[in-house]
């Protein structure tokens, strides 16, 4: 279950970063509260995941999936370029996360 929590926490990070960009476009209290709400949601699940998964492992996977998700979203939704370099780093993250899940 802890790994599911960790995946949910990463979603919080991905959408949290989207909400920061949304806030920077127009600085309003409502948009600021949206950032707080989304990240808060993610942090609750990160905290739950850390009850079972070691702190550094959980943190690394959380950031990794967050960054990988943001890039995938950029490529798939915002049509950013999928350069070989980016796909290479993306696969390193996925390899690391899967490795930690299986052998960590």
């Amino acid at each position, binding site marked *: 279950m802890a790994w599911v929590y960790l995946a949910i926490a990463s979603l919080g990070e991905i959408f949290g970063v989207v909400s920061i960009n949304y806030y920077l476009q127009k600085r309003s209290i409502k948009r600021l509260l949206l950032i707080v709400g989304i990240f808060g949601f993610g942090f609750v699940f990160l905290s739950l995941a850390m009850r079972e998964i070691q*702190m*550094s*492992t959980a943190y*690394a996977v959380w950031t990794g999936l967050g*960054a990988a998700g943001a890039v995938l979203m950029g490529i798939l939704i915002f049509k950013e370029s999928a350069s070989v370099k980016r796909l290479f*780093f993306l*696969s390193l993250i996925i*390899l690391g996360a899967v490795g*930690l899940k299986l052998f*960590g």
Partner: protein
Amino acid sequence: MAWSYVALAAVIEIFWVVGLRYSVTAIQWTGTGVAIVLSFYFIIKACEKLPSGTVYAVFTGSGAAAILLVDIFVFQAGFTWVTLTFIGLIVIGVVGIKLTTDEQVDTEGGG
């Protein structure tokens, strides 16, 4: 000045990650919340002056390494080389992706 914001954010980040893992009392949870807000504040401040991908790469890269050291030296956690290798792969991947994000923004003339 902007880089000292990044350093400050990274140091504060160690406290909230430890807080998320070990907080029990209401005061500890409040402190964790305050630390999260502070580290985000400094990151946003730094991003006003520096490319955000680079800021984020340095922030997470140093954060992940620092938290690993805290785990090992403060909480006496044991790590196998296999675990360390996979954590290392993730950190390299995140730093690499964030740095190429800035390259992309540059070539598109935005940012």
